[in-house]
C-alpha cells in the first residue's frame, strides 16, 4: 500500500469492502463482456455460454446494406461533429478562460445546457424546429444537433486543459513579439493539444452513440446506426445487434485508450 493512503487499517479488515466493490465492478462490466462473448455464438437463441462459435452475426452485420449504410451515416456525422464541436468548443473555452467578459456564468450555463436539459426535450424541440426549416433527415441537421450535445464536453475538457496550463507562457510569448493568435498556436496549443484531442474523441463518441435526438431527426437515407438499432430492438432481439454492439464497445475502448494515452503525455 502506498504511503499516501497508509492508514492503520489492514487489507484483511477491508475485505468486506473489496468484496462489495468487486461485485459492483462486476455488475458494471459484465453486460459488455457477455455481449462480446455472445456475439461469437452460432445460435440464434443467445445462450450463454455459447455452444458453438461462429462469425455469422458479423457476416450478417457487414453483409447487410441497411446496416452498412447506417454505419456510414453515423461515421460521417460523428467525424463532422468532432471537427465542428472541437473548433467551436476550443474557441469558446479560450474565451471563457480569458475571464475578461462579463456574464461568464450565463455563458457557461448556456454552453453546458445540453448536459442537463432532458434529451427528450432537445429531441422534440429540434424535430419541431427542423420541420420548419427542412433539416430533418439531413446530415447537416444531424451534425448541428450532435454538435450542440458534444460542445459542452469539448468546452469542459479544453477548459480543464487550459486551467492546468500556465497562462503566463502565452503572456511571455506575446511580450517576446508574438501576436495573440501566433502566441496561441505556437505556445498554448502545443501544450493543450492533448485536451483538444481528448475533447474531439469525446465529441466523436457522443455523436456516434447518440440515440434520442437521432430518433427524431434522422430517417430515410440518413438513418443513423443507433436509430436502426433502436428500431430493431423494439421488434425483437436480433443477435446481429450483439455483433454491432461488440463493434461499438471496441470503438469506445479504442477511443478511450487514445484519450487516456494523450492525457498521460500531458
Amino acid at each position: 500500500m502506498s504511503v499516501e493512503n497508509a492508514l492503520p487499517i489492514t487489507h484483511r479488515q477491508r475485505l468486506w469492502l473489496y468484496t462489495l466493490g468487486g461485485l459492483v465492478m462486476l455488475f458494471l462490466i459484465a453486460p459488455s463482456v457477455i455481449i462480446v462473448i455472445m456475439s461469437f455464438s452460432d445460435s440464434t437463441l443467445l445462450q450463454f455460454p455459447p455452444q458453438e462459435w461462429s462469425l455469422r452475426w458479423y457476416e450478417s452485420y457487414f453483409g447487410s446494406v441497411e446496416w452498412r449504410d447506417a454505419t456510414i451515416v453515423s461515421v460521417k456525422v460523428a467525424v463532422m461533429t468532432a471537427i465542428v464541436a472541437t473548433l467551436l468548443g476550443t474557441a469558446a473555452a479560450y474565451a471563457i478562460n480569458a475571464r475578461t467578459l462579463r456574464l461568464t456564468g450565463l455563458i457557461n450555463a448556456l454552453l453546458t445546457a445540453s448536459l442537463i436539459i432532458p434529451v427528450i426535450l432537445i429531441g422534440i424541440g429540434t424535430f419541431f424546429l427542423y420541420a420548419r426549416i427542412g433539416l430533418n433527415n439531413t446530415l447537416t441537421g444531424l451534425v448541428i444537433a450532435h454538435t450542440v450535445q458534444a460542445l459542452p464536453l469539448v468546452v469542459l475538457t479544453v477548459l480543464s486543459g487550459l486551467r492546468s496550463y500556465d497562462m503566463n507562457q502565452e503572456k511571455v510569448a506575446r511580450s517576446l513579439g508574438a501576436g495573440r493568435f501566433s502566441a496561441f498556436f505556437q505556445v498554448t496549443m502545443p501544450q493543450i493539444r492533448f485536451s483538444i484531442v481528448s475533447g474531439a474523441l469525446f465529441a466523436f463518441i457522443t455523436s456516434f452513440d447518440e440515440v434520442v435526438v437521432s430518433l427524431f431527426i434522422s430517417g430515410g437515407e440518413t438513418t443513423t446506426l443507433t436509430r436502426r438499432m433502436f428500431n430493431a430492438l423494439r421488434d425483437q432481439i436480433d443477435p446481429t445487434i450483439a455483433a454491432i454492439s461488440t463493434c461499438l464497445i471496441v470503438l469506445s475502448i479504442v477511443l478511450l485508450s487514445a484519450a487516456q494515452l494523450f492525457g498521460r503525455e500531458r
Partner: protein
Amino acid sequence: MSIVSASLDHAGRPDRALNADALAADARRESRGLLALLSPGLFLVFAVIIVPIGWLFWLSLFDETGQLSAANYARFFEQASYIKTFVTTFKVAFIVTGACVLFGYPLAYMLSQLPRRAASICLIFVILPFWTSVLVRTYAWLVILQRKGLVNSWLIDLGVIGQPLPLANNFSGVVIGMTHIMLPFLVLPLYASMKTIDVDCLRAGMNLGASPAATFRQIFFPLSLPGLASGVVIVFVLCLGFFVTPALMGGGKVIMWAMRMEQTTSLYSNWGAGAALGVVLLGFTLALLGLFQWLLGARATGVWSQR
C-alpha cells in the same frame, strides 16, 4: 493616439483621464474579439436548444383549437394516465437513485482508498460503461434478463426456481438497466470528492482516539457528503427525463415521462400536450439543480469534467 497626445501638450500637464477613451476602446475591441470566439457555439446552442424549447413553451399555452388556455397543464391533474406516468417516473427515479447510492458509495470509497495505480485500473470499470452506448448496455440487459436469458437459465439450472422470473419487459428490468447506466454518474463525482479528503484528517481522528469505524462515520462520511449530493442530484435529474431504457425494457407497461412525451408528440401529434410535459420536466430539472447549486454552491455538471 496622436490626437490625444496633442491635446495633452495643449493642457500642459497630464490630464486625470489621460488616454481613457483610447483604453476603453481597446478594452471593447478585446471583448468583441473574445465574443467572436464564443458566438458560433453560443449561436448553435441558442438556435437548437433555446429557440425550440421557447417555441414549445409557447405552444403549450394553447389548446387544440388555438385558444389561450391552461388545458395542457390541467390535464396532468385530471387524467389518471398522466398521474400514473408521474408516479411511475418518480418511483423509478427514487429507486434507481437509492440503488446507485447503495452500490456506488462502497465502490467510490474503495477506489478512494486504493493505491493510485490500482485505483486507476479499477476506475476503468466505471469509465468504460460510462462511455459505452446506452443502447448497447440496454440491449445487453435485455439479453441477460429475458425469459430465456442468462439469469433465468442459470437459476433454473441451479434449481433455485422452477419457472423463469419475469425480469425484463417490466418495472424491475427498467430499474436494473437504469441503475447500471446511472451508476457511473454517481461514482465519478463521489470518487473525485473523496480523493480530496485529507488523509491527515483521518489520521488525526484516529490519533484522537476514534476507532476506524467512528473515524469513518464522524469524519470521512460528512466530508464526502457534497460529492454524494452532487451525484444523487445528477442521477435523479437524469432519471426523470430518461428515455431509451424504459422504452426498450419496459415492455410497454412502464410508461415514464419521456416516453409519454414521445408518444404524445409522435403518435398523437399533440404538440401542445407534449410541450407542456416538457416544460414541467424542465422545470423540475432546473429547480432541483438550482436548489443544489444554491445549497452547495457547486455545479452538478462537474461529472463530465472528471474522467
